[in-house]
């Protein structure tokens, strides 16, 4: 039987969750013998094929991220949300207290440390911002939630092992963290 395929994407987040995944250390050797890694930030392959398991790290803050999340949902059977940003929205949601245009102005022109005499703002060449940054499950159905900032390597390993055993896991309370 062919190995199940896994793809992961790095959306609005810091890559800490993928770093935690790499913290599985030697357990990765065993995992790679049982699954086929396809598109991930680790392999740097960006085209998402049909996969069994899709993983999203990070929330959704712009149109591209929304598109990628929907694309991955379409192409995978089981979708995992990794980390507080994907599960709860996380630190990205701090921008939701003000309007997107005010946020951009603050970041690109108004802060004291910014040198931008002509007041250039990102626009046509950058994906448009969503009105609010949102967790993944606001846009697509999520099957497995793994909160934590970042989640522990043990928790990530647990989730993969459960899926390989044919179960859809829920992170048990003793293992769960939000910080």
């Amino acid at each position, binding site marked *: 039987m062919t190995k199940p395929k896994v793809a992961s994407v790095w959306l609005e987040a810091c890559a800490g969750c993928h770093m935690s995944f790499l913290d599985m250390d030697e357990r990765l050797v065993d995992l790679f013998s049982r699954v086929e890694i396809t598109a991930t930030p680790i392999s740097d392959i960006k085209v998402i094929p049909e996969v069994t398991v899709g993983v999203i790290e990070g929330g959704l803050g712009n149109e591209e991220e929304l598109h990628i999340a929907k694309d991955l949902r379409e192409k995978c059977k089981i979708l995992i949300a990794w980390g507080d940003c994907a599960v*709860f929205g996380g630190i990205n*949601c701090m921008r939701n207290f003000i309007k997107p245009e005010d946020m951009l102005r603050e970041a690109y022109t108004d802060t004291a440390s910014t040198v931008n005499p002509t007041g250039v703002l990102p626009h046509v060449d950058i994906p448009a911002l969503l009105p609010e940054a949102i967790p993944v499950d606001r846009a697509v159905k999520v099957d497995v*939630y793994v909160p934590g*900032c970042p989640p522990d390597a043990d928790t990530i390993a647990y989730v993969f092992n459960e899926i390989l055993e044919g179960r859809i896991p829920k992170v048990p*309370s003793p293992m769960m963290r939000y910080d």
Partner: protein
Amino acid sequence: MSETKIKMFIDGKECVGVKGDTILEVAKKNDITSIPTLCWMKGLTSIGACRMCVVEPEGGGRMLTACTSPAEEGLRISTATERLVAYRRQVLELLFAGRNHFCMFCSQSGDCELQTLAIEHGMDSVRYPYLYAPFENDTTDARIQADHNRCILCQRCVRTCSEKVGACTLGMKKRGWSMTIEADFGSTIGQSDTCVGCGACAQACPTGTITLRDLVYRGRRKDCDAVVDTVCPICSMGCSIKAYVRTGSIVRVEGTNLEGPDGGQLCAEGRFSLPHSSERPRVVRPMIRTGSTFREASWEEALELVGSKLKATRKSGKTGALISSLATDEELAAFAGFRDAAGIRTSAYSDDSLRGFREGVEPFVKQGVRPFTAAHNILKADRVILVEADPQKILPIAASYVRVAVLHRGAELVHVGKNATPFPGITDLEAQTLQDSKVEEKLRCAQKPVFILGPSVLSSALAVTKVLNFAIEHRAFFEDGIGVVPLLGESNVLGAMNALGDQGGWLEEEQDFLYVYSTGLVPESAKALNAMSRSGFTAIQTPFLTPPLSNLADVLLPAPAWFEREGHFFTLEGERRTLSKIMDPDPGQKGFTEILQTICEKAGVKMTDSSAAPFENVFSSKISADLAKQVQVREV
């Protein structure tokens, strides 16, 4: 009052409680731990605001909040059905969605009851859209800050501030999801007129809404190396505290007496200065003065010098020894033994108020009656009479009792004295003297008056006797003594009175030899410092390097700090309490008794083992207080 027993079943287990208990109280008495709580807190009125403690009758039916629903005979309750757990999780998700919780950078993460409950209930995501409403932070106070993003509206802080501290600073403003806590109807914590800065609201807060700046990121409770139950050593209330130790520092202290009269309060001094004390510079070696500086010496050399000085001056009649009133009973007993062996005159630091109080109460002690009552009896009084007293300055917890007695128990407050009342807004009468006819009028119908005596009264034996006569005339009697609360500020002042008796007055004379034992927690009085500077030879034993005290010594000896000692204190709460050792002292540190014995040995006298004066002298009375009689006073 007889208690009617009731029997009910919780999750099939037979539980016994009494009529008037809530379901939650019965569950707790029977060790059932499956009812979660969030807005409930021991010692506070229950309000059922958070809906976490919902239970349901067996077989379904309407959900009840366990903290407010009375237990009834034969009631059968389930606490952990699928429906209940789902409901609780829903509540938690709504709490997370309604405010802005960022656990990943919250200073309270890991020490937050909301987070703990959410994890226990398996909340791995939130189904509801987040509101992202902006909430302000209140950072106007130097020690206490409030981040309304984390608030779950449990009102524990509001109830603590009202029911325990009596300041009634905190309240709620706005409606619905916009509700926030506020101070003084629209002010902030730092700008509040009524806030006493005790930090009880932060201790009560289950999340990180109200926090103490000192504690932020200093470690979660569960990360601490040790947690020790002890008492606050600073004032004579002797509040029960829990001290958290981490990497050699006390990082946090909390009041623990949640169900007692003080409700687990600490004053600002106890809550904020005790943790810092473990980081103060220490005296680590014996030091001997050489000109204007010190050199390190061995214990042997230092004690030899002190002993030889004592030997040379012992017969002059100009030798003295001073001890802090924060010393334990055991240390005071050793000190009394030192006095007897060396023929030295002794005094506690707080001698002035001690002497007046001691002489003033003597005629009543001889009657076999206890001439004062426990401070918490202020809560049972129907008239509180301040006699030249400002409790907030001396015993802040007693001030809380006054406020709670007036605001929640209907007591009337009378202030007698030349200054303005320390409790504006809640004082019913201000008078210049106790003999004022208006005071007489207030006391005529009083069932349980209590008199709180300030330092200027306590320093005068005549004034103390007069007030006690006045109290007896107006039948100020409590179960444990006459209804008088002396504001004796230093922690074991009653123990010092018990152990050392009255030897005051010599401090103003020139001394040839002076031995000082300081605990370093309260500043020395100008009188004591003058005595040290004028003495021909001064030996000072103190834990901390604190000018000007440590600069006045000819020999400076290390002492264990309060967190390295253990022993007993007499407290104004009417009981003897135990100071526990929190951290081990330096291995080179010598015990107090050992030091005194060595000094006596070097001085050529023998110090016998001395036992503490019996504590019954302080707390027991031979006859009931209401048999006390007024005594004649001789006006001078």
